[in-house]
């Protein structure tokens, strides 16, 4: 599904907060429900994101937050975010039955049929989803989808310490491999260190996390000839492809912009690592 910004019938919606709790220090788990006839939600893919608005009008620009899990039958999205500034702080005070304005879904996520055919992946290919820090939540939707498709999925998750948020959710859909900065659980070091230590052979890597981690994954993947996908972040204004605020440098001239820049909010946030310059 290519959500190239045209005629997907999305709108700024007022969604209902179903629940919110703090699942780790400063990390919140928010579930929001859309009206039943909001058809745009039906095509949600893992890796896509939403634009959340601060409803009291005190802030202008929407905050981009990845979709952690989509339950389209119930029109519910699960979002997991870390409080870092005024916008996320405002979201953290939302309680059930509050409302929040949101545009969803946005960007291009993981289209696994396309990934399989583009890379000639065999039926028993190992999909390795790597998430670091607040890049962990979007990987849940990834392994869930792979599990539904009957694919072999591994989650390699990089935490700071032994506060392993979302780990039980991941275990439902995939084998979990852990790295921690302090060595308290799993491999001490990076997600790549943990992958190497596990002996798992990746046929394709899907990743989200801080830039140094994505750079590491990108070079590991190219050295080992493994196709890899990275989910990128940039400051956004419109979130829908109109302002050119959120670009990333590309190896080739981009089809839309006609320069070596691509829009993270529209062509991304998920890119093939070999196509972007990190």
């Amino acid at each position, binding site marked *: 599904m290519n959500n190239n*910004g*045209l*005629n*997907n*019938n*999305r*709108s*700024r919606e007022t969604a209902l907060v179903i629940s919110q709790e703090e699942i780790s220090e400063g990390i919140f788990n928010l579930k929001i429900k859309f009206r039943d006839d909001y058809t745009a939600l039906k095509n949600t893919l893992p890796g896509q994101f939403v634009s959340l*608005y601060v409803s009291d009008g005190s*802030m*202008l*620009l*929407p905050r981009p937050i990845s979709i952690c899990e989509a339950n389209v039958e119930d029109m519910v999205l699960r979002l997991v975010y870390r409080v870092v500034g005024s916008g996320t702080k405002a979201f953290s005070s939302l309680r059930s039955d509050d409302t929040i304005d949101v*545009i969803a879904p946005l960007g291009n996520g993981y289209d696994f049929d396309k990934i399989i055919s583009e890379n000639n992946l065999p039926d028993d290919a190992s999909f390795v989803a790597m998430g670091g820090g607040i890049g962990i939540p979007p990987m849940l939707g990834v392994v869930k989808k792979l599990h539904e498709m009957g694919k072999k999925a591994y989650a390699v998750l990089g935490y700071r310490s032994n506060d392993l948020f979302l780990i039980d959710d991941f275990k439902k859909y995939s084998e979990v491999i852990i790295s921690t900065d302090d060595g308290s659980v799993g491999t001490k070091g990076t997600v790549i260190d943990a992958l190497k230590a596990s002996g798992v052979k990746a046929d394709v890597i899907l990743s989200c996390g801080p830039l140094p981690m994505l750079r590491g994954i990108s070079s590991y993947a190219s050295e080992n000839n493994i196709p890899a996908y990275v989910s990128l972040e*940039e*400051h*956004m*204004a*419109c*979130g*829908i*492809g*109109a*302002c*050119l*605020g*959120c*670009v*990333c440098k590309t190896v080739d001239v981009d089809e*839309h*912009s*006609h*320069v*070596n*820049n691509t829009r993270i909010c*529209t062509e991304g946030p998920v890119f093939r690592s070999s196509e972007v310059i990190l």
Partner: protein
Amino acid sequence: MNLSVDFAGVKMKNPVTTCSGTFGSGMEFSEFADLNMLGAVTTKGVASVPWEGNPTPRVIETTGGMLNAIGLQNPGVDVFLERDMQFLKGFDTKVIVNVCGHSEDEYLDAVEKLNVEDAISLYEINISCPNVKSGGIAFGTDPKMVEKITGAIKKVSKKPVIMKLSPNVTDIKVMAQAAESGGADAISLINTLTGMKIDINRRSFALANKTGGLSGPAIKPVALRMVYEASHAVNIPVLGMGGIQTAEDALEFLMAGATMVAVGTANFNNPKATEEVVKGIEAYMERYSVDDINDLIKIL
């Protein structure tokens, strides 16, 4: 009830357009707002050749507004004519094409290439972008340059020309008059105000470009004052913008002297903002039994 206005000889079905650079060429926003409801769509600045723009971060929110330093990234006029203009022809709205350049020759080159397209109603010449090193604001802050470049563009242009003025000047009236003397058919203002934000945690500039252009509700009082001053200093029509979020904001600009208004940064907060401004103006006219929008323009 009449909402239509005559803007530099072009009949607009209502006085509402978009601010260049905040609406692309309407493609993306057409999913959210009905372009047919707008008097005109003003497109993102386009140059004779593609421009890469600035490094990121290019945008950051500030109190009541935002700073941007996009650096006029654009795909160049050829792609614009083939793709964006063809798309816009599918809508019942006028098209104002915003043009940028690094030098007088580049502006002229772009305008000459655009002249072939009949569906373009007007050009808006950006001589006020604070985010590019040469061209842009370098032209827009010196009245002699404003007059000269306006004259040069008027010579080659087959469409009426709007000169877009910078607010980063001591006396906006002088700039407006310089554009008028150069032969401009209209002026638009304000472009963004040069600003800065520092990220104290990273101890560095929030934008890669260090400075950026301030837009949004924070600049509205400044913009309104400048639209008032400029429109009373010249006899050509004014396209007013700067922080317009609602019909009430738009009406202030019309009363202050603008014949048309543009909605910019507000689109990022509310992708239906343009449409809602048009509907809100209509509602105001109904409420106060105003038959003709022209009876509200420049009444102060």
